[in-house]
């Protein structure tokens, strides 16, 4: 899966190896919807909400502390994108 939005792509690249490409795509689509946007229109302002929702979803697999670590990386994705 490839997104034209670099933020969505960064989140996808982080999640896909962990939960598989299909679920990563589904998670980004669902959590973006909860933030009132689509994957292609995710902006830095939406990241905290999306990160929080993804944290809730993935904690079942990796536990609360690791889910929080991943959530923090997603919430700061825009810094990584603007730097890199």
């Amino acid at each position: 899966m490839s997104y034209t939005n670099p933020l969505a792509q960064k989140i996808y690249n982080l999640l896909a190896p962990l939960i598989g490409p299909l679920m990563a795509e589904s998670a980004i689509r669902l959590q973006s919807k909860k933030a009132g946007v689509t994957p292609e229109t995710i902006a830095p302002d939406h990241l905290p909400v999306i990160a929080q929702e993804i944290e809730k979803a993935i904690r079942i697999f990796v536990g609360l502390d690791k889910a929080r670590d991943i959530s923090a990386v997603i919430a700061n994705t825009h810094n990584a994108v603007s730097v890199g």
Partner: protein
Amino acid sequence: MKKSTLAAIIAGNFIILNAIIYVFSAVRETANFYGIMSNILEALCAMTAALGLFVAFRILKKWDMIKTSWMLLFVGFGLYAVAEMVYASLAIAFHVNPSEIFPTAADYVWTLGYIPLCAGIAMLYYSYKKSGFAQGSKKFYLCLSAFLLAFAAVLVYFLFMPILKDPKTSLEAKVLYIFYPTADIFLIANALSLVYITRFFGVGLVSRPWKCIAFGFMFITAADVAYSYLNWTGQYAAGSVIDMGWNTGYLLIGLAGFYQKELIDSINSGGSK
């Protein structure tokens, strides 16, 4: 070599050893030695399951529903390991044939083990339902319900009814013969749902522990159902082919724990490779 790979290799060797024991106990008339070997192997496999689950439980730092689920699975398989050791001790040290005297002390420990196991696997499944990830089609759950109802009907007709009508079987034994497959239906319902769900994860790292847990429970359930029938009809003896079902199940559950640790280690190292 990764610890999970090493654990998988050891598990594979255990199963090969189990197959050798089965073949030899089948062709030799004096099957006692192989029966003892089989009892020891079962205790080792159950201990491996408990160890793997303990590793997974410990790697999760914060207490939440997931850590609790892994803890309950660990306690359940810990009790299974104790039961296997009691069973093996009865056979080896006290020269009791546990398949002739049913139920034994080990059966009560196994029964106790079901409580945390059922709670643990139900919590895992409930947590997944709450996660917001794909749940799958209603058609699957309808088919699963129909399959389980049919399975339950077959068990009631071909196993439970004859056992209940059997005047030679004590009330205690009847309750336990019926308890094992009934509790297994609950476990297999959750396990099959997990197998279905893990299909959505493809090759994602998170799928490995869940797949191992799901398939592990399926092997254990199949062996339990076969055991209830064979033991009641007097055809079960240690070293039987169904022991391989339990051992494979135990080892898959143990592997699930090691894969869970590998998943967390992978996140700690900053990559999900």
